[in-house]
């Protein structure tokens, strides 16, 4: 009945699973390049996808601190996994971006800005925690004193098809961070996988248009109930991080001996910051031709765990692993709140999954609660 029209914004509809293919086609017809999860190199990565068959149907992940394995999932679901090592920041805030080219002409330097690139991406299967991570990167890169033109150009083009989580991994703690397992805002479409179809929440006009010819039906109370039930299971499957009073807890424990304990395990490899969907730190690389007539400045991802991150003329303000881990943890859970009004962690668990030694921030924060530093 409703197939000729499109649903209104904020409606909930149900479609058969095959209808997702039609949504993909509608997105492509509207000019979007689809990027979504697919299996590669024994992991679920984010890459260009063409069709429904490219999704990691039937796969899930066995994740623990320091461990990641793909394993067959339940019921042949399309979205029966959570998040792999990749996050959407590699598309919105790419690992490398040319800022400008400097050219010497008649002895004078001319600085030519690089035009921000703006591929028109549709992100398929954005998890609620990652949706929140995008919102946090927006806060840092768009809503500061000046917007970052490169991030902005990419961000404004993106279509977000969210996928609510019916499964949680052992490393997930979105419930604690209040970012999932259901997406509440910031998407164009948000789907919840049901045994026989998808429940889809419509978040925007564009989202609504992409449901054209999908044979959608308005969701019934029964559909909404089934979806809620599926998400509640994910909500219960999680580890915990108590978030009350985090800035005071961490700031008052800056000299706590536990930092030495975690520093003894941390390799300062930076994996956590690369896998983290909210980490936004970058550095710049300068290069030139052999004649010194053309120079380029490129922005690349950086990590507060790298040796020269805090280098100033011959000195390093954070020369130890202890000081770098302390910077990482206090930034995520304390100073991020001062800077941006919200905690900098979305509970996706990537940092502990991809940490070679399985350092788990929920446990590190807990250590300060269990035995806070004695007041001096």
């Amino acid at each position, binding site marked *: 009945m409703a197939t000729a029209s499109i649903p209104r914004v904020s409606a909930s509809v149900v479609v058969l699973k095959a209808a997702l293919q039609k949504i993909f086609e509608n997105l492509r017809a509207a000019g979007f390049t689809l990027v979504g999860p697919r299996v590669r190199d024994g992991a679920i990565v984010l890459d260009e996808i063409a069709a429904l068959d490219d999704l990691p149907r039937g796969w899930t992940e066995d994740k623990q601190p320091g461990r990641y394995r793909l394993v067959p999932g339940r019921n042949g679901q399309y979205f029966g996994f959570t998040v792999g090592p990749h996050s959407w920041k590699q598309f919105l805030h790419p690992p490398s971006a040319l800022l400008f080219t400097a050219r010497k002409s008649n002895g004078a330097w001319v600085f030519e800005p690089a035009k921000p690139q703006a591929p028109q991406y549709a992100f398929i299967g954005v998890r609620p925690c990652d949706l929140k991570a995008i919102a946090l990167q927006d806060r*840092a890169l768009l809503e500061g004193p000046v*917007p970052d033109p490169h991030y902005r150009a990419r961000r404004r083009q993106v279509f977000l098809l969210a996928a609510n989580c019916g499964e949680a991994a052992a490393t997930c703690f979105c419930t604690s961070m209040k970012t999932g397992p259901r997406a509440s805002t910031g998407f164009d479409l948000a789907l919840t996988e049901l045994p026989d179809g998808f429940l889809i929440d419509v978040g925007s006009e564009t989202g609504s248009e992409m449901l054209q010819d999908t044979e959608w039906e308005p969701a019934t109370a029964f559909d909404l109930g089934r979806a809620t039930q599926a998400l509640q299971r994910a909500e219960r499957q999680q580890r915990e991080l108590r978030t009350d009073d985090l800035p005071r807890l961490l700031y008052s424990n800056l000299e706590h001996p536990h930092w030495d304990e975690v520093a003894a395990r941390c390799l300062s490899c930076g994996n956590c910051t690369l896998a983290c969907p909210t980490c936004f730190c970058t550095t710049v690389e300068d290069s030139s031709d052999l004649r010194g007539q053309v120079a380029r400045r490129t922005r690349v991802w950086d990590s507060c765990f790298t040796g020269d991150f805090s280098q*100033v*003329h011959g000195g390093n303000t954070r020369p130890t692993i202890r000081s770098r881990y302390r910077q990482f943890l206090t930034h995520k859970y304390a100073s991020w709140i001062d800077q941006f009004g919200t905690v900098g962690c979305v509970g996706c668990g990537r940092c502990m999954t991809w940490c070679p030694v399985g350092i788990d921030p929920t446990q590190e924060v807990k250590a300060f609660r269990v035995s806070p530093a004695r007041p001096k």
Partner: protein
Amino acid sequence: MSQAIHIPAMTPAVLPMLPQPAVIRAIKPESYGVATYTLAFQDPALAAAYRFLPGQFNMLYLPAFGEVAISLSSDPAQPQALGHSIRFGGSVTQGIGRLKVGDMLGLRGPYGSHWPLDLAAGKDVLMVAGGIGLAPLRPALLTILKERSKYGRVLLLYGGRTPQDLLYTDEFEAWQKAGVELHVSVDWADENWKGQVGVIPMLFYRIRLEYKKCLVLTCGPEIMMRFVIYEALARNIPRESIYISMERNMKCAVGFCGHCQYGPNFICQQGPILNFATVEPFFGKESF
């Protein structure tokens, strides 16, 4: 294009990390390994529009080498001649050290917070500087001397490792004539040195202060500022009346890159000039 989100409009500062060509107008050797470079934008419109406040900094870009944050050390009343006292410490500054008058650099700025001269009116101003830390205080000093009567006593405690490390010594006499109480100390003297020997905080023992009327502005190595703060607090100067200038690694100067974080502060945004009371929980914490 998605409609589900609100993207802020682009401000006129379209490319915040793009330097603008600037020409070296003058180079003045100051002290051992330090020279003051006076720069001017090549584009006359940019040069005419540029203004800065005492304590702010610019990013100087040497193509293929990199970029450094350098405080403005010149008179804010003459914003067309931008003075930068540079110590040739790292690869970029050493590269700049090989340039000549007429050569070009990239310049963007000004960035950061400034000394609270608005709060200093009617008060005694105590400036405490170590080595090249006098550079970001010089614009404040010059501004104060222009309207000397607006302020109470103006004191400058200044020190360096050796007499050769002191900046702007050719201006000391003029400053004193204009009403600056100047006390200078060096850590290691040579046979020509007639002045005080010892670390800068010891200069506090040569002055008397009315702590309620006093505003402290200090810039130098962190360890020096730490002991300056001890001396100030010991004289009952309120922590809210103490301003420090912090240094951290900077790549973007506009809050994107994360390098300059100091607790909740981005030094490029909330700093480099910070009120001590606001950073006290972090200040002096090892490797923070």
